[in-house]
């Protein structure tokens, strides 16, 4: 799948932050789903940072994270947040503005 209309050039790195709550079930599912989405659709362009709110509570607060799992597209802009376990791939891609326009 291509990455049309995102404002990102083909080689620009996509930085994603995934806030999880330790080993909770939806958090674990979100981690797996994210890795798959990146491998399948955003090959080699993804930089995923997993933030465990149990360990980095202040970072969660700084980022105004109210619920986990929460995926933040840090760059390229705009900054977008997606909540949930990311099971619906097309929905995630659309939300992150990576879908076919």
């Amino acid at each position: 799948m291509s990455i049309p209309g995102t404002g990102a050039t083909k080689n620009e790195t996509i930085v994603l932050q995934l806030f999880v709550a330790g080993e909770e079930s939806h958090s674990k599912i979100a981690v797996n789903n994210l890795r798959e989405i990146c491998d399948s659709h955003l090959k080699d362009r993804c930089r995923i940072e997993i933030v465990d709110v149990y360990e980095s509570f202040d970072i969660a607060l700084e980022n105004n994270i109210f619920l986990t799992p929460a995926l933040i597209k840090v760059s390229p802009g705009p900054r977008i947040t997606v909540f949930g376990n990311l099971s619906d791939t097309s929905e995630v891609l659309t939300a992150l503005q990576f879908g076919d326009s």
Partner: protein
Amino acid sequence: MGEKAAYEELEARLGEAEKIIKALRSGQGDAIIGDKNIYLVRLKQMEEALQKSREELEIRVQERTEQLSQEIDQRRSLSKRLVETVEGDRREMAMYLHDEIGQMLTTLRMELEWSGNGTGEPNGLSNEKRERASARILEILNKVKDVSRSLRPGLLDTLGLAPAIRSMVEGFKEVSGLRVHTHCNWLDETIDPEKSLALYRIAQEALTNVAKHAEATEVFVTLIRKNSSFQLSVEDNGNGFNYDELEKDNSDKGPLGIRIMRERAVLVGGDLTVESKIGKGTNVVAEIPV
């Protein structure tokens, strides 16, 4: 910040709030980040855990109920055996007193009287002394008969409950000096012997209690045949006592005599109630199904 920017920021926050609510509604949230704490979203697990613990509790309650029910059955059957043993012993004692001792005393008395009839045996006893000894033996004989009767009421077997109770009441009147009135609204009906004996013993125990504790002057013993039960009531005009009816349900409470009377009633399928108020006398009522 200009108005437009402020508005856009508000919209952004509302949009985010909507996303959070949507995620929670679809059950995809793990944890809610508070100011100082992390709150795990656990509704489904909590419901399942609650359901499971409810089911386990039900099972345990059922097992415990069965266990208790068995224990009650065991205790009842033990009670029954104890009562049978006691009654058996009493029967034997009554027979021994009547047959052996009674016989010996009668023989002794007869020998004493014959010895004064000039049949040829000098024995050195004056007439006066002989007569006194004979009277003394008669006294003892009567006492033996009394004891024998209270141990095993022969009338119960031959004539039935009402006559047996009237006879017992006569004896009680003599010994206690109380005024006792009996009333019975059936005469000839034969009652199951176990039930008959239970009612007799309850009446006996209740009267004994009146004599010992009540400080009464008058007692009413009533036997009523109702539609499907026999009711025995022993009511006195004595002191009464503080008997909390609630205590009757707790098998470890209540005076021993009352517990025993109740047990006798229960063993033959009936029940016993005690009504008493300080200064207003006591009424013991046993009801036994036909």
